[in-house]
């Protein structure tokens, strides 16, 4: 390892830092002013890449040279900027006052919509963009060849920083944006129309996202997975830098770029883990990131489970439902039982999240971590310990509980959006481990051959096993929600000051809540592994976490039974509609957005509201 190699690695790090900063800078700007974490920022980035990959070759065909190339990049970014304006006017404007959970879900709905539309408009295959005219030949640095386009990227980061700096410091718009970042109400009291300011901010943020995506076209093919991979990295950059701080994002991107460039030499398998560990350590030391300021969130506490009178009817209804479910194998066919098994598992998954969100007010955005840990716990038990289902299944809640204890210890100090981001990051770390540690986890392919023991192998028997375990665990969780522990969690959600004044310790309670919810989600994951016969990293991915949140939202976060109904409805819809249409994600995304805007109480919550009204 000589000096020239280190220099080249450092340059590689700088170029990825630049790319990362350009992508993340718009996200942090938009958050600073609107207080919305825009999940769809990665989608805007992806649209930028696809647009440039399609548009630039056409321009180059018309006239080959650097001018059409760079013009094409700029036009792509401007188009994305306009899409940002559309998004602000149609969606964001309606959810500025909503709880952060709803904001995250609604913008994730946009992610789903864009995924299907991109495939529809640009086709399912990756699009390799053109090389930049005049920058095709590598340059020689200390005797090593280095792509000259990377040098342009290295320069682009500081250029964008300068451009944003100029807008923020030297234009009236920028002054207003900075003022609004600090005190929106006072800006309004001085006669500034915030709606225009917000629209302008979204234009700028989306423009930068589009620019970031378009600039990647000569080095990476535009593909339909780039939205979620870049958004996860952007989250890390903005959180480490401090949400809302552009210089913070720049510094964070620099650190992360170098960490990736040199991390790959030291720990070639776990570069992603290193990056997310940086985030965990930063937040543990500075809960608001490098340059962030304390956030005062409100709204999330207004929603959640409230007390309700215990009714004998409920006990009878639950018993009757259990009898009906237990009798299902007598009438249902194999396929129906498979679907029913999965619904039960997902119901437990969503129900365990309800303990955190509905009861504790802890908006966990990485619940897939515990589901996935459970699934891998069971699968690894079978694969590496040679355990049977009976031996491996208990490993599922155990491993998930251990993971939840670790994650919980990191996040109980945080609140609001930082807690959401941190749980998301934790899930992404585990996703990265599962993806990269091929020898143990099988990497992308996962592990197969995770089947139940012979006695439980028939669908009907496995269904009954699942019913017994999921129903038992849900009843146990229900009992916990009604017990002093559940009340204490609600107390801390309702009023932290009052809870502390009567001697409750929020951190230990919340930590225990994470552990319990993690164990329950882990059991669901374990059952899922044996039901499908395999595990793979998608179980730990962002879409799995969002599935759980969608079930919660669908059922209603202020009802105890909501998640169960949500799981049933979502899984049935998915099972029925997905085979029929190429637009499942579009449909799901629009449904999520619609629910946030129209039925924020969810199905069960709305029914109850109508009954009471």
């Amino acid at each position, binding site marked *: 390892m000589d000096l020239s190699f280190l220099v080249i690695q450092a340059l590689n790090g700088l170029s990825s830092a630049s790319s990362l900063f350009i992508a993340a800078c718009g996200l942090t700007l938009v958050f600073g002013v609107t207080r919305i974490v825009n999940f769809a920022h990665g989608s805007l980035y992806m649209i930028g890449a696809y647009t440039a990959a399609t548009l630039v070759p056409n321009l180059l065909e018309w006239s080959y040279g650097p001018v059409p190339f760079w013009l094409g990049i700029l036009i792509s970014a401007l188009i994305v900027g306009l899409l940002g304006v559309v998004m602000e006017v149609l969606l964001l404007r309606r959810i500025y006052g909503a709880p952060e959970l709803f904001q995250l879900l609604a913008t994730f709905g946009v992610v789903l919509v864009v995924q299907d539309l991109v495939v529809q408009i640009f086709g399912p295959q990756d699009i390799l963009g053109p090389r930049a005219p005049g920058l095709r030949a590598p340059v020689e640095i200390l005797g090593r060849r280095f792509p000259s386009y990377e040098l342009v990227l290295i320069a682009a980061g500081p250029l964008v920083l300068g451009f944003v700096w100029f807008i923020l410091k030297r234009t009236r718009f920028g002054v207003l944006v900075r003022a609004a970042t600090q005190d929106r109400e006072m800006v309004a009291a001085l006669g500034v129309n915030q709606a225009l300011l917000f629209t302008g901010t979204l234009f700028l943020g989306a423009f930068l996202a589009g620019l970031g995506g378009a600039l990647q076209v000569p080095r990476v093919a535009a593909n339909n997975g780039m939205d979620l991979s870049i958004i996860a990295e952007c989250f890390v950059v903005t959180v480490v830098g401090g949400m809302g701080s552009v210089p913070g994002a720049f510094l964070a991107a620099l650190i992360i770029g170098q960490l990736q460039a040199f991390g790959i030499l030291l720990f070639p398998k776990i570069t992603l883990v290193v990056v997310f560990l940086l985030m965990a350590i930063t937040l543990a030391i500075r809960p608001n990131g490098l340059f962030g300021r304390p956030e005062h969130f409100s709204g999330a506490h207004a929603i*959640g*489970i*409230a*007390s309700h*009178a*215990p009714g004998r009817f409920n006990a009878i209804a639950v018993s009757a439902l259990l009898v009906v479910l237990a009798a299902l194998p007598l009438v249902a066919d194999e396929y129906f039982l498979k679907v029913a098994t999965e619904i039960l598992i997902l119901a437990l998954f969503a129900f365990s999240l309800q303990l955190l969100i509905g009861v504790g007010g802890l908006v966990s955005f990485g619940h897939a971590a515990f589901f996935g840990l459970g699934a891998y716990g069971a699968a690894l038990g079978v694969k590496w310990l040679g355990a049977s289902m009976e031996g491996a299944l208990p490993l599922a809640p155990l491993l998930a509980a251990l993971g939840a204890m670790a994650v919980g210890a990191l996040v109980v100090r945080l609140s609001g959006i930082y807690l959401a981001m941190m749980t998301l990051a934790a899930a992404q770390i585990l996703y990265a481990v599962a993806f990269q540690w091929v020898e143990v986890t099988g990497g992308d392919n996962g592990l197969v051959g995770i089947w139940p023991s012979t006695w439980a192998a028939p669908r009907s028997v496995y269904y009954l096993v699942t019913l017994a375990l999921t129903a038992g665990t849900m009843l146990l969780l229900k*009992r*916990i929600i*009604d*017990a*002093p*522990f*559940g*009340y*204490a969690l*609600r*107390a801390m*959600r*309702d*009023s932290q*000051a*009052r809870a*502390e*004044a*009567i*001697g*409750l*310790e929020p951190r*230990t*309670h919340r930590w*225990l809540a994470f552990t319990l919810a993690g164990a329950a989600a882990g059991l669901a994951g374990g059952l899922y592994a044996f039901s499908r016969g395999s595990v793979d990293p998608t179980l730990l991915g962002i879409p799995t976490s969002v599935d759980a949140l969608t079930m919660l939202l669908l059922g209603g976060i202020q009802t105890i039974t909501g998640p169960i109904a949500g799981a049933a409805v979502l899984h049935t819809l998915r099972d029925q509609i997905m085979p029929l249409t190429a637009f499942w994600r579009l449909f799901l995304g629009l449904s999520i957005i619609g629910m946030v805007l129209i039925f924020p109480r969810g199905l069960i919550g709305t029914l109850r509201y109508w009954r009471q009204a």
Partner: protein
Amino acid sequence: MTLLSVESIDKSFGGVAAARDVGFSVERGEMVALIGPNGAGKSTVFNMIGGQLKPDRGRILLDDADITTASPQERFRRGVGRTFQVAQTFLSMSGIENVQMALISGHHQSRRLWQPARTLYREEAFALLECVGMVEAADRPCSTLAYGDVKRLELAIALAGEPKLLLMDEPTAGMALRERAALMDLVSTIAQDAKIGVLFTEHDMDVVFGHADRVLVLLRGRIIAAGSPEDVRNDPQVRQAYLGDSHALTRSV
């Protein structure tokens, strides 16, 4: 033995002194009012006694035990109860569950996972609601109570910890006029009966002079006067602080 003794505490924020050499004491069964104009440092002093802020210097003793750096939770366990300027209750629970929650925490039962919470300490909670005249609100959701009732409920919650010292930050703020005296009469009676020392801040001078045994006047972070309501009312420094420079009066007309 003195119940609460505050010994020359200081607190400054970024170089600006919010409390300077503040010292006073509260005895059992005594109602002490802390008054002063906006920005005089009342909240700072109050939050240092409640545990939300730590003094830069000085000591706070409760029954001779040093609680200067104790957390709000530790203070609760040592016998400090408090109410907040904007009443803090658990809106998702019924009236009686709010009090039960405080009793559960007071008995170290908040980590139990099995026994339904609504069956625990119900009678004790009911007795406390009776004490503040809120029996009829026992099973109503807290979110549907009128604000005056929420204030009384908060008092019941604070009393559930069997406090020796009760801190009340603007106990009557936001209440209708006729409710104010009633609430303070109630506090007064309870304090007498249970020998609880009460320290409160208040803007309504009728409440202060009608209910306090002693009054402390804070101005720019210092206590400028302390004594019986009568003495404080006639203190020239206090009159100056509230009425301003008397020369300005003559100049203006």
